[in-house]
């Protein structure tokens, strides 16, 4: 075994007794032992493990405590939130809402035998639970009602309340237009605390806040049910607004007199045909660009 190997083994504290004897014979032995002994004075101080442990663990309390009480607190909070939510859900009136989008109609059966047909861009909501005691329905937009015989039936709109017993009627409530048409039975309309009773064929029309008288017409049901919107002496802007609701397009009619009166109808199934039915009688021209339509004077 070479001198270097012996020193290496000595360094690893791995000398066997014989090797130790050989190591002692080395010239370096005295020097190495001297250094080894002297090095002992450089020993790291013995740490006071117990005290250090106390110090370290006492510091933990500050930071670990929040996590230990936060968790159960969160659990309690979660239970409270769920309980509260369930309570609110059980006690709140359960409003059923039905909505239609552009170019869409929907037939809806109410809890009794009554039926509602929703025109495009309209919505109704009603409380299913209390329906049998109180037949009340909120309406935005236009809808045709066939009401089964029974207790009072209220249609609540922003512009007024329509009250009936059992009949067929159409309610249209748009920006500046409020129209009720009675097809069967009798309908009472309350607008600005003024009450009007309609009989079949009669129309109640409020345009820009003014009531407009119309002669009677004998119709069985609104034409829009059969995919055709018809207008009688209404400003062109109402026609165009309805057109935008039936076809998913925007109409640019800046250069057109929108207050001119229109009588006629347009179909919901053929856009070109519909445009012609509007523009020809009004002496207008139209340009179609994808989803926008520009109206111009002829």
């Amino acid at each position, binding site marked *: 075994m070479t001198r270097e190997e012996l020193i290496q083994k000595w360094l690893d504290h791995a000398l066997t007794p014989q090797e130790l004897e050989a190591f002692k014979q080395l010239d370096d032995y005295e020097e190495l032992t*001297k250094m080894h002994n002297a090095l002992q004075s*450089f*020993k*790291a101080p013995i*740490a006071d493990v117990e005290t*250090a*442990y106390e110090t*370290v663990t006492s*510091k933990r309390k500050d930071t*670990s405590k929040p996590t230990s009480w936060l968790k159960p607190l969160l659990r309690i909070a979660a239970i409270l939130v769920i309980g509260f939510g369930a309570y609110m859900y059980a006690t709140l009136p359960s409003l059923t809402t039905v909505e239609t989008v552009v170019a869409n109609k929907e037939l809806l059966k109410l809890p009794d035998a009554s039926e509602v047909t929703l025109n495009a861009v309209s919505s109704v909501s009603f409380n299913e639970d209390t329906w049998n005691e109180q037949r009340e329905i909120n309406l935005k937009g236009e809808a045709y009602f066939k009401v089964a015989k029974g207790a009072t039936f209220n249609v609540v709109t922003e512009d007024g309340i329509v009250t009936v017993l059992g009949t067929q009627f159409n309610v249209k409530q748009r920006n500046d237009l409020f129209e009720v048409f009675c097809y069967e039975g009798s309908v009472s309309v309350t607008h600005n605390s003024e009450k009007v009773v309609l009989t079949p064929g009669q129309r109640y029309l409020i345009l820009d806040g003014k009531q407009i008288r119309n002669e009677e017409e004998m119709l069985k049901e609104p034409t829009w049910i059969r995919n055709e919107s018809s207008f009688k002496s209404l400003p062109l802007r109402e026609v165009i607004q309805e057109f935008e609701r039936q076809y998913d397009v925007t109409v640019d009619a800046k250069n057109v007199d929108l207050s001119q009166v229109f009588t006629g109808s347009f179909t919901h199934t053929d856009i070109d045909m519909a445009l012609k039915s509007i523009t020809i009688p009004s002496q207008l021209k139209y340009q179609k660009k994808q989803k926008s339509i520009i109206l111009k004077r002829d």
Partner: protein
Amino acid sequence: MPKSLNDNICNEVMFSKLFKKHYQNLYSYLYYKFGDYLNPEDKAQEAFTKLWQNCGKVTPEKAKSYVFTVGNNMMLNEVKHHKVVLQHQQTKPRSHTNENPEFLMQEQEYLQKLQRAIGNLTESERTAFLMNRVEGKKHKEIAALLDISAKAVEKRIYRALSKLRVEIEEL
């Protein structure tokens, strides 16, 4: 993933075991590497405090490496600000005082040389060498503590020894 209680350092029994196993080693390691000028005991305690505070994030297998790395980094942060003067020497009462004054002086001189030479070693050489000579640790044990191979430890120690011998000879 289910964890048994013993897998968690947050368990006080587990933490105390790890603390007793590694605290002195960490303290000595920091002491040999950086000297006692920068208060290695404080750093060792701080490293374990950090382990306590992050007990959920560190597995027991990683705990040793964690405290060594944290302690080392804390030291390095301060080393940036101070250039360390190593103060390895301990004033130890001499057991045999009946030596003649000349011998005592020689002895004192030798210790001073040795101290300077140790200070001139690289950090890694000094740490491995002193752990080996002073703490009496085998190469393998040091390798496990420093997360390096036994061969690397052996080289560092041998190189340190050679450097010390050369330097003491010269002075």
